[in-house]
């Protein structure tokens, strides 16, 4: 079978409208009329430019034969992005919205292919900022090798949302023979991460500015599908991959322990941590195990291939600081714990709520 060109079945591209000529978004841009078309064309369609999106029908039309070339199961995910501030060192809400959904597909062993983009915009937001964020989405999508093929735009009144919320859904195709799951960890398996922990959480907290701390820490926000491809190519025996986003490493470790009914023990000495992030945590009394990441995965692999998995991760630019950080134990079931640098051992529980700076 010849591989069909994406978009070949689709009608020719509609001519784009000539754009928005005001500085700020108003409710008119959400009214369904010409102003809305202007905004969508100017900001999103021009940035995302691809043949599947171009006809601007109410849905993207994707050839099933096309999808089937990549594997035997469809993966489908959705995520919403409400980060404050919209721009931060190392990324912005646009890049984050692409990477987050790409990574949610990739950690399931899927090749991410098509994404949607729904934007909820608060009136008064600068159109230039939206253009910039849409370009950032387009760049991130290009880097990840995915196309943004459908979307939606809503404008809401002051105070109804915080400047800009983005939802992205994504579809990908899971390669045949791969079955990753949190329930598959067994005693003896190795636990790996692909690099320095906590950068995103620290960068965002610092960027909000309330704590008036100056750092050079940048978000680790990155699409991980290339890294995960390289890992699965080298080590198809890998049992589980998850991105350690909100709730950090500690949350993923607890998820593994719970789903597999095993214990998980990590070694504090093995944890890759930037000195500046460690310092940031010391000042605020935070625990880096709970800081969010946007470019880090936790991997469970059989002990026999642990070193091979580490080598495969390390060979990729997004895995230079990869490390084997611990192992799966036979219990107590559902419990994650850590050997501390100091020689003690402590339980690593899930957080009750958001981690708040501990000051007094």
């Amino acid at each position, binding site marked *: 079978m010849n591989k069909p060109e994406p978009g070949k079945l689709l009608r020719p591209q509609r001519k784009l409208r000539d754009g928005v000529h005001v500085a700020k978004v108003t409710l008119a841009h959400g009214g369904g009329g010409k102003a809305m078309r202007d905004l969508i064309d100017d900001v999103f369609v021009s940035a995302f430019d691809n043949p599947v999106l171009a006809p601007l029908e109410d849905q993207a039309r994707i050839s099933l034969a096309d999808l089937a070339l990549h594997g035997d199961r469809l993966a489908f995910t959705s995520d919403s992005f409400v980060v404050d501030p919209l721009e931060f060192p190392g990324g912005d809400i646009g890049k984050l919205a692409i990477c987050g959904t790409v990574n949610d597909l990739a950690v399931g062993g899927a090749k991410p292919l098509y994404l949607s983009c729904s934007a909820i915009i608060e009136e008064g937001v600068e159109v230039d900022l939206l253009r910039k964020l849409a370009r950032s989405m387009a760049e991130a999508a290009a880097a990840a090798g995915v196309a943004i093929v459908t979307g939606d735009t809503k404008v809401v009144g002051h105070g109804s949302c915080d400047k800009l919320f983005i939802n992205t859904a994504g579809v990908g195709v899971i390669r045949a023979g791969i079955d990753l799951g949190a329930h598959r960890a067994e005693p003896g398996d190795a636990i790996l991460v692909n690099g320095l922990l906590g950068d995103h959480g620290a960068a965002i907290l610092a960027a909000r500015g*309330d*704590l*008036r*701390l100056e750092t050079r820490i940048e978000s680790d926000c990155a699409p991980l599908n290339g890294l995960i491809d390289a890992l699965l190519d080298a080590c198809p025996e890998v049992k589980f991959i998850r991105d350690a986003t909100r709730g950090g490493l500690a949350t993923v470790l607890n998820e593994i322990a719970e789903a597999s009914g095993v214990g998980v023990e990590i070694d504090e000495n093995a944890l890759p941590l930037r*000195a500046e992030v*460690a*310092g940031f945590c*010391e*000042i*605020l*009394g935070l*625990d880096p195990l709970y800081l969010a990441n946007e470019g880090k995965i936790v991997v469970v692999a059989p002990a026999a291939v642990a070193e091979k998995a580490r080598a495969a991760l390390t060979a990729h630019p997004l895995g230079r600081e990869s490390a084997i950080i611990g192992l799966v134990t036979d219990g*107590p079931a559902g419990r994650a714990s850590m050997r*501390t*640098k*100091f*020689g*003690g*051992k*402590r*339980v690593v*529980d899930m957080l*009750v*709520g958001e981690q*708040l*700076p*501990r*000051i*007094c």
Partner: protein
Amino acid sequence: MKYVDEFRDPERAAVLIAAIGDLARSLDRARERPLHIMEVCGGHTHTIFRYGIANMLPAEIELVHGPGCPVCVLPMGRVDDCVAIAEAPGVIFATFGDAMRVPGSRKSLLQAKAEGADVRMVYSPLDALALAHENPQREVVFFGLGFETTMPSTAFTVLQAEAEGVRNFSLFCNHITIVPTMKAILDSPDLELDGFLGPGHVSMVTGTRPYEFIARDYYRPLVVAGFEPLDILHSLWLVLKQIVEGRCEIENQYGRVAPRDGNSAAQDAIGKVFELREFFEWRGLGSIDHSGVRMREAYAAYDAERKFAIPALHVADPKSCQCGEVLKGAIKPWQCKLFGAGCAPETPLGALMVSSEGACAAYYQYGDLEGLRAKRAANAA
């Protein structure tokens, strides 16, 4: 990190653990019941759990987690006052992060924020003063809490506000002082404490003299301890050495930070802005004489207690709550009937479940919960 990494050295830790074990086993009385050493300060409790220190110690030593967590001991009535101020029109209520989750009788500051109050998390009282500069039409109130360690920072901030003629800044003063509370614990009839790790950062301000009565009048050794894990072990070793040698003294393990006389500039600022209250209420411990400070008349313009109509109602602790007994070392957190049964970090009833530095929350978060529940069941049977 200088002055941090050296004091987290596992090799020196192993030496101290062995030395502590030798001392503890040489004591006959430690064979009858474990020695109870109280770390007064919540920061110490945090270090102990963070580094897994309790599990490294020999069975002859049991650590009792003291009342030195200002977030934990804040009574519900004061939280209600905070909420009332935060909900007043035009107010920006600035607070340290860890105070936001403390439950009041109706809600916490976090809930008040969710309902629309302008509650801001800050790192320093100076940031609250900066908010007052940045928002001249708003009233900025800083929630001052903490022991002597934190008092100078709020005192200096009030002095700075006065010097700059800032009129829209005030302090809701909930500062407390640790010594009267230690005395109250020492006076309790069911006391089972053999020695103390003294609060290192309070001592950095006050010096070590305020504890001398503990050795003199109560015959208990106290070692002022730093906050790194080696500091804790070293201080424990020093306490044990005193017990073994039959001494009762106030020693200072944290000389690198806490000088014997404390910090005179900080003491002056405290003396200028604050005066002792007749009494202050502590969650779990009740009212304790002279255990808190308020702002002096001269700074009334910066005193949120005078500037705002606050309810100032007393709210009783839940009836079956046994925080007081835990704080005195009479029972362990898991022996309390409410522990994990109604009282949990998501829904704290007692003081010690409130902050991650509270003994019960620390047990809950880091401890072996199933093991503890089994222990409690076995004890009850």
